[in-house]
């Protein structure tokens, strides 16, 4: 339980910390250090187990399907890192207490810091690679938020986004790599993976996996060419940069290499990828650090360089190198943390980090200076300090590489060269800051020592530098041993943590580095001049430009594709349809099925010819809009005739009534539109459209032809057989509509209702001014409701109502039904609107069409619900033949109530739509003449 606790605590702390923000910085700092303290306490008891070469495992099932488990693992390596994270974390908290200003959002700061710490602990303690992956990306996220803590600073935001992009992106690569490894091993549990090293290396996917994993590691620990994000991460408050650069974040990549060392290392690919990347990073980092005028900039690049060193060591693949690497991890963490804090103090007290302005601080803050100088010397690799030991080991290892021919000299030379630079920039850090004359107009003058407690963390770390430097075996020996053995997976080579190994080549290299460095610093001006020839590139700007470039590109691509043209979209849709249908239809070709063609009678042929002619005419003459409408109604009429001709009386009637309503609606519309359509699309486009239309038409023709001549049998036999006995009606179509497939009809009238409500809502507050005259310039006639029409219209209403009743009642047995009846009633009412006007009509029929619609839907639904009472499913119809005295025998069918619902819904929807559009008319307020007459 203790391991999950260690990881979980900081997150809990993150939730709790902000609550202490009110209590001031001290309160929150104390609160925030509690988790770390508990964590340390929790880890302590495990020391025994580890010392006996054991491993602590706490594992809980989570998502076996995914291979993801809540398993944590404590061994030497994870212990080492955990301790670094926790202890340095504690010092950072203390340091930040004094670094942050009272007015800053300390709650947010500590919360984020703790989240970050928790994520780091998660990485080093997870025993499940997927779990580790989760924490890995969490560090990217939390560091993103930490670096951009001062959100008002542009550089901070950019630096943060860059860090996120690089490390987060690398994380995705790592994810892929881990998934492949898990795929090979068949498990994501660390033990299985580490045990399956040979299997992994033998696998075909090994190179891919390795590359992806290394991408993750290199991006995280700022290896060339991904190093550029790290220096910009120092835009974060100094406590954060100190933490990120020394113990955490960048060390995550290193940790990953150490962690997976047994699984992945020891191959050609590993050697070349890792060591050469390391070498490049080592050199470049060291070189650039030399020329940074920004204090933190110098340190940041030195971090890059040291990370390169560690990577190179891992890359060498020898066991001793690995040991050296682990050792340098410790040392670098210690001196780099202290240096950053020192830099922070200087920044804090002088108000700048520009070394060209900061001079001679020795006089103002001797105490801080001493600490910084010791740490810097350790960074330079001066004997008797911890930095020296691991660097010495490194030099030694660089000679052990048995590379072919001259290349064998490359590592030692690079190592020495980097050493020289390291000494040089360390010297600069000491001399240029604390001596080198007087300060140049510092923002804060005179600078003085920081608050007492702000120095304590630095003092502790510097003390560690010296201790490790003088008594390595005592100070870190056991820990190093455990870590190394964990890294190497058991056997640890012979190594001695002595200060002096006698006069040998490594020692000589150290001397060269030391004095070369001093020489180089003394001659710095030459180098600066030389360096000044190359113009410095600002990675942030480059990154930002790349992002902007990408965004612009995306923008233009999007604009080109998503260009807001319906014609384009419709074209794409239609072409897609044609494209997918083309292949099957092409093998179909002109196919006439075994039923063959039946003879054509002249009237049908002529009617068809008329329809085709008018359809094409509608398309061809669509610019004269009224003309197009007339042609359209001819088409509609012939379609209705076709339905009648081919045995569908109900359809014929429906088509007729729907068509006329549509036409009326369209006429209501073109009143407000231009009477003709302008010529806009160029001829080429029109020709293309004609081609597409042609293809579509031909396709439909072919399908229809093939379809109609194929023999056929369908489920309809059932409907014909059961319509009368089961549905109580002889009009099978109607029985299907109200019974067999009543649910479709319910949906259909719902659509009608929604459409009407939507139309009403859409036009509620729309104002349209119609053109004062028609296309030919005739002003519209004044007389709205001519005498004869209004006279003839009125007697028609009762007749129409009776016809509706007739059509409605017979619908179940003969052509007709609620829908057609409804349309007839609607048409009759519409005629009243046309003849006598809206106002006049609505004075006489007080119907709120919304309610009619609602009533219709309600009737239909209730009719369906009725059957629940008898335990039958929704829409189960019942019918019976009842005999009443006078009336005699007659049929009552529940379906009739359903059909009544249809009837009402149709009336309500149709009229609501038309009336809503009618209301747009500016005349709609004018009272018709008839009122007076």
């Amino acid at each position, binding site marked *: 339980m203790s391991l999950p606790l260690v990881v979980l605590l900081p997150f809990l702390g993150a939730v709790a910390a902000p609550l202490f923000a009110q209590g001031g910085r001290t309160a929150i700092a104390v609160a925030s250090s509690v988790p770390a303290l508990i964590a340390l306490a929790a880890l302590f008891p495990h020391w025994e187990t580890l010392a006996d070469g054991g491993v602590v495992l706490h594992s809980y099932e989570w998502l076996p399907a995914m291979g993801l488990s809540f398993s944590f693992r404590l061994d030497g390596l994870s212990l080492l890192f955990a301790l670094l994270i926790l202890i340095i974390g504690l010092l950072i908290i203390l340091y930040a207490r004094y670094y942050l200003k009272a007015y800053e959002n300390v709650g947010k700061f500590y919360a984020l810091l703790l989240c970050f710490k928790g994520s780091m602990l998660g990485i080093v303690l997870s025993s499940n690679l997927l779990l580790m992956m989760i924490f890995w990306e969490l560090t990217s996220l939390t560091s993103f938020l930490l670096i951009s803590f001062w959100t008002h600073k542009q550089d901070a935001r950019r630096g943060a986004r860059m860090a996120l992009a690089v490390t987060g992106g690398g994380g995705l690569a790592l994810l892929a790599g881990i998934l492949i490894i898990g795929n090979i091993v068949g498990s994501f549990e660390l033990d299985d993976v580490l045990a399956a090293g040979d299997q992994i290396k033998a696998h075909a996917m090994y190179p891919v996996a390795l590359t992806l994993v290394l991408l993750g590691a290199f991006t995280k620990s700022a290896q060339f060419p991904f190093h550029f994000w790290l220096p910009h991460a120092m835009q974060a408050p100094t406590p954060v940069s100190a933490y990120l650069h020394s113990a955490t974040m960048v060390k995550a990549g290193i940790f990953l290499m150490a962690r997976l060392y047994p699984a992945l290392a020891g191959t050609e690919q590993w050697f070349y990828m890792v060591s050469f990347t390391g070498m490049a990073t080592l050199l470049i980092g060291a070189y650039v650090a030399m020329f940074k005028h920004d204090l933190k900039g110098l340190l940041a690049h030195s971090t890059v360089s040291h990370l390169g060193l560690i990577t190179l060591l891992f890359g060498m693949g020898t066991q001793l190198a690995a040991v050296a690497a682990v050792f340098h991890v410790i040392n670098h963490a210690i001196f780099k943390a202290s240096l950053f804090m020192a830099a922070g103090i200087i920044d804090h007290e002088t108000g700048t980090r520009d070394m060209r302005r900061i001079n001679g601080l020795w006089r103002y803050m001797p105490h801080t200076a001493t600490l910084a100088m010791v740490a810097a010397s350790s960074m330079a690799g001066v004997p008797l300090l911890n930095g020296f030991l691991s660097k010495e080991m490194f030099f030694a290892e660089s000679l052990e590489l048995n590379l072919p021919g001259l290349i064998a000299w490359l590592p030692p030379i690079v190592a020495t060269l980097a050493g020289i630079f390291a000494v040089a920039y360390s010297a600069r850090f000491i001399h240029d800051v604390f001596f080198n004359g007087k300060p140049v107009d510092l923002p804060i003058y005179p600078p003085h020592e920081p608050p007492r407690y702000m120095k304590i963390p630095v003092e502790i770390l510097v003390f560690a530098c010296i201790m490790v430097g003088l008594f390595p075996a005592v100070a870190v020996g056991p820990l190093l041993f455990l870590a190394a053995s964990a890294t190497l997976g058991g056997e640890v080579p012979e190594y001695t943590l002595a200060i002096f190994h006698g006069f040998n080549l490594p020692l000589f290299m150290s001397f060269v580095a030391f004095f070369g460095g001093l020489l180089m610093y003394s001659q710095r001006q030459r180098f600066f001049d030389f360096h000044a020839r190359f113009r410095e590139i600002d990675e942030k700007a480059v990154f930002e430009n790349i992002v902007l470039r990408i965004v612009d590109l995306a923008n233009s691509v999007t604009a080109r594709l998503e260009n807001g043209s319906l014609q384009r979209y419709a074209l794409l849709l239609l072409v897609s349809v044609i494209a997918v249908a083309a292949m099957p239809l092409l093998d179909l070709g002109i196919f006439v099925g075994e039923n063959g063609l039946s003879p054509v009678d002249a009237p049908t042929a002529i009617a068809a010819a008329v329809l085709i002619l008018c359809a094409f005419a509608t398309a061809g003459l669509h610019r004269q809009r009224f003309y197009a409408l007339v042609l359209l109604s001819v088409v509609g009429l012939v379609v209705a005739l076709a339905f009648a001709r081919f045995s569908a009386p109900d359809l014929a009637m429906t088509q007729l009534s729907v068509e006329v309503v549509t036409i009326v609606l369209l006429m209501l519309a073109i009143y407000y539109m231009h009477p003709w359509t302008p010529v806009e699309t160029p001829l080429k486009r029109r020709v293309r459209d004609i081609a597409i239309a042609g293809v579509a038409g031909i396709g439909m023709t072919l399908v229809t032809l093939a379809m109609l001549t194929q023999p056929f049998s369908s489920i309809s036999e059932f409907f014909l057989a059961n319509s009368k006995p089961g549905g109580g009606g002889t009009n099978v179509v109607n029985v299907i509509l109200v019974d067999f497939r009543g649910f479709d009809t319910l949906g259909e009238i719902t659509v009608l209702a929604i459409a009407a409500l939507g139309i009403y809502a859409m036009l509620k507050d729309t104002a349209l001014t119609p053109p004062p005259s028609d296309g030919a310039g005739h002003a519209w*006639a004044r007389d709205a409701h*001519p005498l004869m029409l209004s006279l003839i219209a009125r007697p028609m209403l009762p007749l129409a109502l009776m016809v509706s009743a007739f059509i409605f009642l017979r619908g179940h047995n003969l052509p007709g039904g609620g829908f057609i009846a409804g349309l007839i009633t609607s048409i009759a009412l519409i005629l009243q609107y046309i003849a006598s006007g809206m106002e006049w009509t609505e004075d006489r029929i007080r119907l709120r069409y919304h309610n009619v619609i609602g009533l219709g839907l309600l009737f239909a639904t209730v009719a369906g619900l009725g059957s629940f009472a008898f335990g039958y499913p929704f829409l189960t119809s019942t019918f019976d033949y009842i005999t009443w005295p006078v009336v005699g025998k007659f049929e009552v069918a529940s379906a009739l109530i359903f059909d009544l619902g249809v009837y009402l819904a149709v009336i309500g929807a149709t009229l609501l739509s038309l009336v809503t559009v009618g209301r747009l008319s500016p005349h709609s307020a004018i009272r018709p003449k008839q009122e007076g007459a």
Partner: protein
Amino acid sequence: MSTFAEYAISALLLVGGAFTLIGAIGLARLPDFYTRLHGPTKATTVGVGAIVVSSVIYFSTLGRGIGVEEILITAFLFMTAPVSANFLAKAAMHLEVKTTENTRGQTWDQ
């Protein structure tokens, strides 16, 4: 079916067809809108009326009852034809549709 009925039906059919056709011919070949208006309002109406009546007789002789639908249709046609004609004429006058040169008298402006 009695031969008389047959004669009557056939006659009505032919007469109806003829009138319908003539009405259409009028619509097709008369010189201007106002003259074309006459064909449909009279000939076509009568023609279709005749056909519908023949249908009445036909089905009643088949013993399918007297078709009131047909009667409604006829009544409806006779009621509406003049109204449509009147209304279209008004529309035409409003649009100042040209009359043939030999037309006497004036249209009213609407």
